[in-house]
């Protein structure tokens, strides 16, 4: 029998890419259903349109690139990208917005860089940012949570007319809590909480959004339990964000950016922490690197949310910034390899110094 010369890693995870991706898909479901509970069927339309268009674009580009179509479609990575994009888009947004988003995610951000595993930026976040910059009006019209008084529950036929026909629905849209915080920057927190129904009817942070974030947290903890990713990046991101919020809480004065709990449970915090920041392709690789990567994202999210001028939420921008920086972080956090006393970069630096 020939001795096969197999290179490291000798111990590898038992899950294939498609199994991992399917687990991620399942883990988004609690968040998706919670979103749908508060914002209605628009969430499912987004998911449907995004999935179909993302798979179609993936297949088309794979065909152009002469790559095996079935093989790559079955790894579910395009579907995960579609889900993450669809969950971050406002429900009842026009259908072409979702299709353009899928195009940007799959064609521009993923396949043009070489496809699965080679994209330097998170495809869903690239698409989200392109859409937010290009079409600010439909991208910032979020539905009002149905649990609020006077909220307009959107029926399926109304939803179809809105999404595919562009017919306006009266009084369904409202600002998200992060918008509210941004627009009322001159008020003290207490005053905002008194006047704004979204904040008044919340238990921990704000109506609907706290539950959406908790649902994504549950999905994320399930993935953590399944060891799909390590705790380093998401936990350090959440801690950094909470720390920033605590430092600049300022006892709720008009300079305050909101409490740590408010920041942890609003906007896309949990979706970002457990589904975007943990992307194995675009994040830093080593454990130390992931802690730095996650913490920097957490700090940036707070900075963009509270002191940024134009945009209420900063998760997508912060993630893209740190995608840029990930190779740099990796370079300086190379771990010590087995058999060496120090990390490669440390040895190289010492040699340089001794010259």
């Amino acid at each position, binding site marked *: 029998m020939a001795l096969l010369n197999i290179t490291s890693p000798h111990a590898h995870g038992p899950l294939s890419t498609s199994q991992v991706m399917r687990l991620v898909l399942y883990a988004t479901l609690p968040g998706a259903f919670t979103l749908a509970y508060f914002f209605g069927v628009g969430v499912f339309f987004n998911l449907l349109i995004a999935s179909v268009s993302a798979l179609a674009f993936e297949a088309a580009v794979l065909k152009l690139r002469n790559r095996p179509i079935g093989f790559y479609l079955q790894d579910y990575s395009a579907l995960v990208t579609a889900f993450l994009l669809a969950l971050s888009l406002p429900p009842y947004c026009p259908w072409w917005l979702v299709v353009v988003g899928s195009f940007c995610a799959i064609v*521009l951000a993923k396949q*043009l860089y070489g496809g699965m595993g080679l994209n330097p930026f998170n495809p869903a976040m690239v698409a989200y940012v*392109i859409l937010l*910059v*290009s*079409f*600010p*009006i*439909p991208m910032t019209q979020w539905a009002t949570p149905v649990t609020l008084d006077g909220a307009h529950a959107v029926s399926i036929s109304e939803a179809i007319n809105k999404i595919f026909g*562009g017919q306006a629905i009266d009084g369904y849209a409202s600002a998200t809590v992060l918008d509210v915080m941004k627009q009322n920057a001159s008020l003290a927190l207490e005053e905002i909480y008194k006047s704004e129904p979204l904040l008044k009817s919340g238990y921990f942070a704000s109506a609907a959004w706290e539950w959406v974030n908790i649902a994504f947290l549950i999905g994320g903890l399930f993935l953590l339990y399944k060891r799909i990713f390590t705790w380093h990046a998401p936990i350090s991101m959440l801690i950094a964000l909470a720390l920033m919020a605590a430092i600049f809480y300022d006892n709720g004065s008009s300079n305050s950016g909101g409490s740590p709990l408010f920041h942890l449970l609003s906007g896309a915090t949990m979706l970002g922490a457990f589904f975007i920041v943990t992307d194995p392709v675009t994040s830093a690789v080593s454990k130390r690197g992931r802690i730095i990567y996650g913490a920097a994202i957490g700090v940036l999210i707070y900075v963009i949310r509270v002191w940024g001028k134009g945009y209420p939420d900063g998760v997508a921008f912060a993630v893209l910034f740190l995608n840029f920086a990930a190779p740099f972080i990796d370079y300086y956090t190379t771990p010590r390899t087995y058999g060496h006393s120090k990390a490669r970069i440390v040895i190289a630096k010492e040699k340089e110094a001794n010259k």
Partner: protein
Amino acid sequence: MSEEIVKTSVDYQDIVKKGLWSNNPALVQVLGLCPLLAVSGTVVNALGLGLATLLVLTASNMAVSLIRNHISDTIRLPAFVMIIASLVSCIELLMKAYTYELYQILGIFIPLIVTNCAVLGRAEAFASKNKILPAAVDGFMMGLGFTLVLVCIGAIREVLGTGMIFSNMQLLFGDMASNWTLNILGNNYPGMILALLPPGAFIVAGFLMAGKNVIDNRIKEKTAANANKKDIVKGGKRVRTTGQIA
């Protein structure tokens, strides 16, 4: 300075082909990207800057070709830059006089033609080694290639960004062009703002380069296939593989 090169007969067809396609300053040499990306938001801006660059390129190539035997190698670059700068100043004054609004829109990017590497590049690589007529043709064709790409990018960005094309053409062509605007994508088109921003220009330019490469590869494959066919027709010769003659 390089009389040998001049003596050989000039292949004008080759100059035309290089300027417009195989050595296109924007798509192949990737020179002068600053104006390419900054002002190609609409067709009229792109055309205005493209024409200005074309004039400067042709005139500077001619001027450099005229003085090529009278300046020493060591000071040639400052001399070229001075020629180009004075020509750009002329163009700037002309645009100020005749297309004042467009001049205001293009702003700093007209004086910046001086720094367009394509202009100095052609002066150095071609005009300083060739007679005046080939130099003029080269400058014109390079400028035309640059303008065409600029207008292509401008048209794509204008349609994607605003849904319309040829808007504000009166800035360049006078009152008769004031109703040239075509509304291609309808009044309900929301306008993709990204296409009007510099990243949009990068993306569109990238797609144009990819398109050119696709066409080139197709042509290469076809010619290769044709060459193979010819071989088969000629065929019948056996090839000696041992390399030894017995």
